[in-house]
């Protein structure tokens, strides 16, 4: 009884407290009416859920558009489905594929599809709208049967060469009794391994049809894309040898950090790669262009795509976007060349609360809308397909983050309110690094707040030049922005931007 009374008293108190709070809030809201409300991404983008076919398990492995405008998607159970946007009807194009995770549309009757065992040309040759030819384009790579040996791509460069990516195996499971390709146990020790060629590699398929190893050092490269200048970018996922998830600018012959695949490198000594001194491996590797801070920024970045809609999707033409499995946004990639290498910043691009997580595949439609194929696949994510359209109004965002000798220049999409733009409190910098090591992931080392010492606003009001107390190579510079406002009263709502500073100016 005593307890009950106490509870009752507590409850009464809570109700009173609640009333009091409500009164206070009511007062505050009266005052707030004279202040412009904070901006929201939903004012600028529309997110639409695409109605799916009955019976579809929408673990989306790949998406694209046919030249005639039909949307096409591959799903985990091997289906390739076409969607007519006018009739809103789905139709099966192909079936029976083994975990398709990438596609490239050739024409209205033909698609290249990367499935687990091979790159396949899937064609409708009799014009009935259903594929009847499944041609093996290349299967010239090993498979141990380990579940983690996913295959990604293809994408084509301007010369017509194709690039695909081959995952490492995971020691969370073994290999099959029968494998495809030459077995080599040398790289079996360790978390992720490469026991058949060329796991952990990006491969190039020339027009001669020969598949050649192109670059090594990847763990789970779930996304390949070219930027506007034709540079190849590949994402990789936090884990062993990856302190956090990364985006690499991939060039022929280079090593990007995960040692397991090195055993297939020509003339590489017969040593267990992970037994090499970390400092030696570190000196061999080409650093990532972008690090995505793990957890709060991104967990598993997916497919990088170039925004090439000619303004139909808004103001980010020529920039690249990438999805993430765990976050309800896509990420914009703002890169620049410093000291001969690409490095730069990543910043969320929010579309509002209707956006789901699991954003595994991205493609721009002919009408300039962004289509996103979602997946979970036993990990964190979601299922389905969403279409994002730009409503035609410019919001306030960071268009560029450029390293200077003393700090960073931030260029905004709209002229800024000078007082807000020059308020030191609106820029909170922190820097840290992730360690390159064998262990899974990395904590943030040497974390330090970096004060902004001075701010200069450009004559057009769009660029702020920030002078930082300290700039050091080898760190991620994370900036949290405050209530920065445009001259016409719009607020910044994408307020976290992280610059990977490999080289100083």
């Amino acid at each position, binding site marked *: 009884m005593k307890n009950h009374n106490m509870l009752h008293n507590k409850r009464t108190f809570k109700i009173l407290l609640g009333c009091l709070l409500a009164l206070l809030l009511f007062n505050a809201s009266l005052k707030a009416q004279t202040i412009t409300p904070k901006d929201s991404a939903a004012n600028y983008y529309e997110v639409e859920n695409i109605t799916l076919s009955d*019976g579809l398990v929408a673990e989306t492995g790949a998406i694209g558009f046919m030249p005639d405008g039909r949307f096409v998607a591959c799903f985990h159970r091997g289906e390739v489905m076409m969607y007519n946007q006018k009739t809103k009807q789905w139709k099966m194009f192909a079936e029976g594929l083994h975990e398709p995770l990438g596609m490239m549309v050739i024409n209205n009757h033909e698609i290249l599809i990367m499935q687990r065992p091979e790159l396949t040309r899937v064609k409708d040759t009799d014009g009935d709208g259903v594929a009847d030819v499944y041609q093996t384009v290349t299967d010239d790579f090993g498979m141990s049967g380990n579940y983690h040996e996913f295959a990604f791509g293809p994408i084509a460069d301007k010369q017509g060469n194709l690039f695909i990516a081959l995952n490492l195996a995971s020691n969370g499971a073994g290999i099959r009794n029968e494998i495809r390709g030459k077995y080599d146990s040398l790289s079996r020790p360790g978390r992720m391994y490469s026991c058949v060629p060329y796991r952990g590699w990006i491969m190039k398929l020339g027009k001669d049809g020969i598949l050649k190893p192109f670059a090594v050092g990847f763990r789970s490269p779930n996304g390949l894309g070219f930027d506007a200048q034709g540079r190849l970018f590949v994402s990789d996922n936090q884990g062993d040898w990856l302190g956090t998830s990364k985006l690499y600018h991939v060039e022929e012959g280079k090593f990007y950090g995960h040692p397991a695949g090195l055993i297939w490198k020509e003339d590489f000594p017969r040593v267990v790669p992970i037994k090499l001194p970390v400092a030696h491996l570190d000196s061999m590797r080409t650093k990532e262009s972008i690090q995505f801070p793990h*957890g709060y920024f991104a967990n598993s970045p997916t497919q990088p795509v170039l925004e090439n809609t000619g303004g139909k999707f808004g103001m980010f033409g020529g920039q690249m976007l990438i999805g993430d499995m765990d976050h309800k946004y896509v990420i914009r990639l703002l890169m620049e060349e410093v000291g001969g290498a690409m490095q730069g910043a990543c910043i969320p691009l929010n579309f509002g609360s209707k956006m789901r997580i699991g954003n595994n595949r991205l493609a721009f439609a002919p009408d300039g809308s962004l289509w996103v194929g979602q997946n979970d696949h036993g990990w964190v994510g979601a299922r389905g397909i969403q279409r994002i359209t730009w409503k035609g109004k410019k919001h306030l965002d960071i268009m560029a983050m450029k390293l200077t000798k003393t700090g960073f220049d931030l260029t905004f999409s709209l002229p800024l309110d000078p007082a807000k733009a020059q308020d030191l409190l609106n820029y909170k910098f922190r820097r840290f690094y992730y360690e390159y090591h064998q262990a899974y992931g990395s904590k943030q080392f040497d974390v330090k707040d970096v004060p902004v010492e001075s701010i200069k606003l450009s004559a057009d009001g769009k660029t702020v030049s920030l002078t930082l107390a300290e700039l050091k190579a080898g760190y991620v510079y994370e900036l949290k922005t405050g209530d920065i406002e445009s001259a016409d009263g719009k607020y910044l709502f994408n307020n976290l931007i992280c610059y990977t500073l490999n080289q100083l100016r």
Partner: protein
Amino acid sequence: MIRLSVICTLLLMSLKSFSQKDTTITVKILGGLQFDLPRFAVQPNTRLTIILDNHDDMAHNMVVTKPNARLKVVEEAMKLGDKGATMDYVPNSPLIIANTKILEPGRIDTITFTLEKEGIYPYVCTYPGHGFVMYGAIYATNKALPPLEKDINVPEAQRQKTAAVVMNHAGHHAVETPPSPHPFPVKYPLLYRTFMPDCGPAAIAVGLTETEAYCFDAGKCYLRYAWSGGFVDNSEQWKGNGSKLTKVIGEVYWRDKTGFPFRIANVKNIPTVDFKGYQLKKRLPTFKYLLDKVEVTETIRLSANGTTLIRDFTFKNNKQKLYFLVNTDDGIVYQSKLSKFNNGVLSIPANVQRLSISMKR
């Protein structure tokens, strides 16, 4: 499930007095964001030790919370933001009873705590994003547990095994058509590229009818085995990340035991192979592959009476003799109109364009 019920039974059998009990349970973390035990029961007033064993390829933890507090704790963990990693993603919360460290793949941690009162105590991985799917429940109770399939304290995926995609229409339940696992009706012949048992990893399963099927090895380019009585169950293979094999439904009545059936030029010379894909005609696949430089197509069909597999081959560029080997003691009668099998070897003269081999059960 059997294991779970055994544990539950053992726990209930050990119920003797009201004094505090000591119990140790090992919980494995499996791939696909799941604990191997979606729930288990202990008596109230148990000092419980959980050994958490991470078999997955990602980092995880286990946080035991007070009843009904799982989602609140998950939300609190998410709010840790960039501080999370240094705190094992465990918020400083009075709702938490116990927690392990963040375990990297392959690591083990042990926690011990006492559950005094009867109740349902959730456990959950609070690694960012995992908490909404990766959880389970400890029942501190002397009573029977609710049926697993109705237990909302268990993730939906673990409440029951996914209904098998059974395509076996044999027997007296033949009238019932199972729902299609695809967004279109299932039609035969039906082909899946998938992980099949007793085959290389690039396998193709073909259901010729609902009850007659075979497995073709697209890596090694030959027919591996054939079975009768159903097609395949892909449910485990499709679940999660695809580690489990697709299962054969029915009985395998034949396996190729030659290792590889073709020889070129002489009966010992095994050619190199190269798989080129397949073409569908009325859904029936014709495989294409190279034996050295010989272009081969192979279509595997069923005879009209359904008891014989017929393998139709075409050859191009076969400037030398080919040999086709079979096992003479595998219960199958091999025949070809071309000529007779001689001790299990069929000689195929150079430039022969077509060949059919029947395999009668």
